[in-house]
């Protein structure tokens, strides 16, 4: 199970309405910035958006690894008499 086999995409979502945050392609945000949600108009704190996205990312990685491990373990015992 190699890490290069995994491909994760985490979408940054508005903390207030859950809609994916969108902005200009060349936009650069940093700590302390407020990212405006085009759907509800609320300002999202950059650090908080990153924290939520990181938490979801870790959850996704955990679930994927657990799934792969379970699959691999099943395969290990398949050949036993």
């Amino acid at each position, binding site marked *: 199970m190699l890490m290069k086999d995994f491909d994760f995409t985490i979408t940054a979502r508005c*903390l*207030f309405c*859950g809609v994916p945050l969108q902005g200009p392609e060349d936009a650069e945000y940093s700590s*302390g910035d*407020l990212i405006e949600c085009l759907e509800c108009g*609320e*300002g*999202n*704190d950059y*650090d*908080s*958006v990153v*924290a*939520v996205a990181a*938490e979801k990312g870790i959850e996704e990685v955990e679930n994927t690894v657990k799934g792969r491990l379970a699959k691999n373990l099943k395969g290990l015992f398949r050949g036993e008499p």
Partner: protein
Amino acid sequence: MKTSHHVTEFDLLECFVEEMERRGENKNLVRLDVDAQLAMSLSEKLGCDITEERLQGFADRCLANEWLEHRVMGGKYLQLGLTTTGLGVVRSRQRKQQLHAQRSKLKRLSDYIEDHKGLFVALGAGIALVSLLVKLFLG
């Protein structure tokens, strides 16, 4: 006399953050019951009457949006904790208020005009109409 403060679910979320800061603990260690005691405490803080039922209505919205979650299996409004998203909502609102307060005088004036542009347009139209009428009837 109680002042009129429009109480929202965000005030409930702020209670959790205040409790975190009061205890010096992170969000994972702070759990609160949304009960009559919390309603009374929030009423005193905001200077308005909040019933337990109303507060639980706010809690329902926070639970639905996953800003609050249950930390133990028990009553619907017992031992609730703030999620990362819920904390983010509070921090976003605090940051917005901070930026709002730091605006320069010129920016405040510009924002005021922007917020009330309809009124300014109506005022301008009114002045133009009065000027036209004065010119027509008084020469």
